[in-house]
């Protein structure tokens, strides 16, 4: 299936890009990550990289041309994949008779089209083909359903020939939209709550050590610390796509979770907003030059916040591995103090519990914590249309003694932009 | 196979018939001249095959028919339509393509129809209507009637399979059909003897065990009498007849074709014009003392007046309503 190469937003503010030069030519084999072209953004000259393995085809933008972000500039086709791939050009099924194969030319595929390169023949590679590639391919029925339900066909991955969006793709999207938190590991049924001893009205449980600590620390937080909360809704479509792409690439090496992406992004955003990466120390504020991210982990009888050190400098894969290891150690109570102290900022994610949005209590002496809700497909305005997109709400709890409203808001804005445009992390 | 014309006794009825035939021939001649003029003025479109020179065939043969007999023809049928009694107004209006035409403007010159006169059409495919004539004859026989069907076609149709299939079946089934071959010697621009192995059409009747007569088509009385004999055969026992009526077309094949040129000489046409069937009849009537110049002039003026009236009617008539486009494709 063809993978379109778009003019990507290589900076958060980029709306169009000038294709400076092609680094790969039509017909060149390319691998994921290969630089395909140099693109001049509003800030710098960047590289447009391949997001699929295959052969570069349908180059429709010449060097020197400026096109808007999102414009298809080429396609990457699987080796051997025809440009005019479609029902007319598709090979007819064959039936075997004796030892010979006979083309059942009369089944659907017009034999005339197969023989004569006249009407209905594959469009030659070129501008026309590129224009065809830029089009969203959808069956008329799919278009009608999309129109009626306000779904943006561009956001759907078509499962028909040549990536054609067909009815079942919309049905899947609709199921996704109505299903609870498709991104959470919610495949397991939610446990039905049962009281352990329904015959008694209550049960006195002595405080465990961890429970005592939580009680003590959180009282010193919400009481003395002047909390305020900032909430933003983040469009996670691109992040989700990036995650899918990366997971495909990682294959068996392990899967990235949304949480990994959020941790990495938060860490990067903090590097741009040191005012939020700080400790309140009664007579001074310690602004950290390193980012150590606390990651709230629910354990059997409480929660604990193991720390991913220097999260801004670690790759997503490293973060993923480390986060899983820490969570596992937390649940098995094998965390050492060094593992859960020294965070400069924390993230608490209840997305997997279908929580849309919540406020988290700051872990002193840190000055902020990010509460992450679940990712939910919902109708939103995109340009002039209503489209279903995967959205996530994040709420930043701030210690007003350290972080002023605008400061927190700026941080949250950067975080949102990064999540909405994962490539911006490259900046 | 040729039967001699019986000596005519000139009674009043016969004179009256001859005067009537002269009137019809004059009407056809003036009508066709006017049609040529109207064609040249762009009022008539498409193909327009004129009958000038052949008037005696239609007039003589149709004079032998009853009103309940069937008539069917090829596309050179203005003369037959007029001789059958379709009003000149309706025929001219059809040539003009008007709603008042005998086919409501949908048929044109080649497809004149009047079911009320049992005039079953001009037909455009050479020879294609000859089997239809057999079918009309079959219907007569099926119902046990004593009507006949008179079918006109040109000599070029004799080379078509349909002619042979129809004659064979008419003979096998004993159908009351008179196959009237108007042999004007040319199929468009091709002389019959260049393309026919047997140039005497009547000889084909032998193949189908059918009565036949070779008739002088420039003599209206001869045509009338030969047709009468054929009609008698048909009415009495349902036996078909093949008439070969030798005639001559004074005009080109169609309005867009030359009078003469590569396929026939001007001299030949001029020579044939000396056999003009109208002059022939006029001369005979004058010799018999039943027609003088004044009477002829009066008849001619009458014919011209009818044709003038027909043109006025056609010009004044409306085109078919656009809604007529889709009517009559299917019957209810």
């Amino acid at each position, binding site marked *: 299936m063809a993978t379109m190469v778009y003019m990507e937003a290589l900076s958060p503010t980029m709306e169009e890009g000038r294709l400076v030069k092609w680094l790969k030519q039509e017909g060149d084999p390319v691998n994921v990550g290969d630089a395909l072209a140099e693109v001049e953004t509003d800030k710098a000259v960047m590289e447009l990289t391949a997001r699929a393995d295959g052969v570069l085809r349908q180059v429709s933008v010449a060097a020197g041309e400026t096109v808007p972000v999102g414009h298809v500039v080429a396609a990457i086709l699987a080796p051997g994949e025809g440009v005019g791939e479609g*029902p007319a050009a598709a090979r007819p*099924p064959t*039936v075997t008779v004796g030892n010979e194969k*006979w083309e*059942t*030319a*009369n*089944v*659907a595929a*017009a*034999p*005339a089209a197969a023989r004569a390169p006249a009407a209905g023949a594959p469009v030659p590679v070129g501008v026309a083909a590129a224009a065809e590639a830029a089009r969203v391919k959808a*069956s*008329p*029925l*799919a*278009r*009608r359903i999309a129109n009626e339900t306000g779904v943006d066909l561009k956001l759907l991955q078509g499962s*028909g020939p040549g990536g054609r969006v*067909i*009815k*079942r793709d919309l049905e899947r999207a609709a199921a996704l939209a109505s299903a609870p938190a498709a991104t959470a590991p919610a495949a397991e049924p939610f446990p039905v709550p049962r009281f352990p001893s329904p015959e008694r009205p209550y049960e006195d449980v002595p405080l465990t050590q961890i429970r005592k600590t939580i009680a003590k620390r959180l009282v010193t937080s919400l009481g003395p610390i002047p909390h305020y909360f900032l909430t933003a809704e983040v469009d996670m479509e691109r992040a989700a796509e990036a995650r899918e792409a990366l997971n495909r690439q990682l294959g068996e090496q392990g899967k990235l979770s949304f949480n990994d992406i959020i941790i990495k992004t938060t860490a990067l955003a903090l590097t741009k907003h040191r005012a939020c990466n700080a400790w309140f120390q009664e007579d001074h504020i310690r602004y950290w030059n390193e980012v150590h991210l606390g990651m709230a982990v629910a354990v059997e009888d409480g929660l604990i916040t193991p720390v991913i050190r220097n999260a801004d400098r670690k790759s997503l894969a490293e973060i993923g591995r480390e986060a899983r290891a820490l969570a596992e150690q937390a649940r098995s109570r094998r965390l050492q103090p060094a593992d859960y102290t020294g965070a400069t900022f924390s993230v608490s994610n209840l997305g997997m519990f279908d929580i849309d949005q919540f406020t988290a209590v700051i872990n002193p002496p840190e000055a902020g914590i990010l509460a992450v809700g679940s990712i939910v497909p919902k109708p939103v305005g995109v340009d002039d249309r209503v489209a279903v997109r995967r959205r996530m709400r994040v709420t930043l709890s701030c210690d007003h003694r350290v972080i002023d409203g605008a400061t927190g808001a700026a941080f949250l804005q950067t975080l949102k932009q990064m999540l909405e445009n994962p490539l911006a992390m490259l900046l | 196979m040729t039967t001699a014309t019986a000596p005519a006794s000139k009674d009043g009825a016969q004179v009256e018939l001859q005067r009537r035939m002269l009137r019809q021939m004059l009407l056809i001649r003036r009508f066709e001249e006017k049609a040529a003029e109207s064609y040249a003025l762009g009022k008539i479109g498409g193909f327009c095959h004129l009958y000038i020179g052949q008037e005696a065939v239609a007039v003589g043969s149709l004079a032998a028919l009853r009103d309940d007999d*069937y008539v*069917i023809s090829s596309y050179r049928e203005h003369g037959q339509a007029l001789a059958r009694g379709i009003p000149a107004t309706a025929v001219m209006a059809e040539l003009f393509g008007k709603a008042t035409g*005998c*086919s*409501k*403007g*949908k*048929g044109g010159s080649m497809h004149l*129809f*009047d*079911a009320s006169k049992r005039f*079953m*059409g001009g*037909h455009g*495919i050479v020879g*294609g*209507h*000859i*089997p*239809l004539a*057999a*079918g*009309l004859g*079959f*219907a*007569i026989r*099926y119902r046990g009637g004593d009507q006949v069907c008179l079918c006109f076609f040109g000599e070029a149709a004799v080379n078509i399979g*349909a002619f042979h*299939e*129809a004659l*064979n*079946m008419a003979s*096998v089934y004993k159908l009351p059909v008179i196959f009237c071959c108007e042999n004007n010697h040319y199929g468009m621009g091709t002389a019959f003897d260049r393309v026919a192995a047997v140039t005497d059409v009547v000889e084909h009747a032998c193949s189908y065990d059918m009565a036949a007569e070779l008739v002088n088509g420039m003599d209206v009385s001869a045509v009338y009498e030969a047709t009468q004999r054929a009609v008698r055969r048909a009415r009495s026992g349902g036996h078909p007849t093949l008439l070969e009526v030798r005639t001559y077309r004074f005009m080109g094949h169609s309005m867009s074709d030359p009078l003469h040129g590569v396929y026939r000489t001007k001299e030949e046409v001029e020579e044939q014009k000396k056999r003009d069937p109208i002059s022939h009849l006029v001369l005979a009537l004058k010799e018999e003392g039943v027609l003088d110049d004044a009477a002829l002039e009066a008849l001619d003026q009458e014919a011209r007046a009818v044709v003038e009236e027909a043109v006025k009617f056609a010009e004044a008539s409306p085109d078919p309503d656009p809604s007529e486009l889709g009517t*009559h*494709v*299917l*019957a*209810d």
Partner: protein
Amino acid sequence: MPTLTYRDALNQALREEMQRDTNVFLMGEEVGLYQGAYKVSRGLLEEFGPMRVVDTPIAELGFAGLGVGAAMAGLRPVIEFMTWNFAVLALDQIVNSAAKILYESGGQIPIPIVFRGPNGAALQLAAQHSQAWEAWLAHIPGLKVVAPATPADAKGLLKSAIRDNNPVIVLEGEMLYNTMGEVPDGEYLVPIGKADVKRDGRDVTLLCHSKTVTTALKAAELLAGQEGVSAEVLDLRSLRPLDEAAILASLRKTNRAVVVEEGWPHCGIGAQVVDLIQRDAFDHLDAPVLRVTQADVPLPYNKQLERLAKPSPDKVVAAVRRVLYLD
């Protein structure tokens, strides 16, 4: 309800209509003394006599034209062609006479005539005797064209055709003559221009007529068994006029269609059906409409080659899999 062969259902229709209306007569090669090349006219000569059951010379153009002439005079001829392959010789009469006279006479002379006979391939009759002519015939304004698939439809449509005041082409099938089915006794008319759902379904519409109804029904069975696909089989029955409403209604339900026909693909009946669907059901289509037709070749004699050339349930299943995106 009595069970009859397709052949006897046609025979019954002819007999009933000839009894009902003395204007109806049957004409064609071998229809009388020989009792019909395919025995459709068995017993009719004895019952109605030689004036109404007329043996003809081998002269398709001639007797087709004779029939049209008789219809011009108000009779209701039923012209039997031994096969439609021979009727090509008579096309001038069908196209230039039967289909034209009403129109070019300005509505004065209707042509109530039936042209009928077997159409399409039988078995190993080679190219000249194995052709499906419906696309040729349905092309002509002024004609009606029906192609019954079952004995009941054969009876009902032939009776309607005989009563129709227009030239009606009745396409039968040599391979259908022996098929059995329930046929209502006596007065039973199937209206011309009405399609019939031969099998109800949800996922895809198989549009077919005549012999391909059998093909489609078999394919639908295979699909239900192997793929769990619910195929609707819509028997067009009438090719001119087409039951456009029925086609569109089915398409709006299933969103996908495969047209199955015996004819060649180029300019075939399916092409017309697809034109209708793309025009009037465009927004209901979830896949391009595919066609299963005879191969675009003269039909070969060799059994294996012939089988390859013809539509088959397997080919229909393959096409359905494609429109359902199952491949």
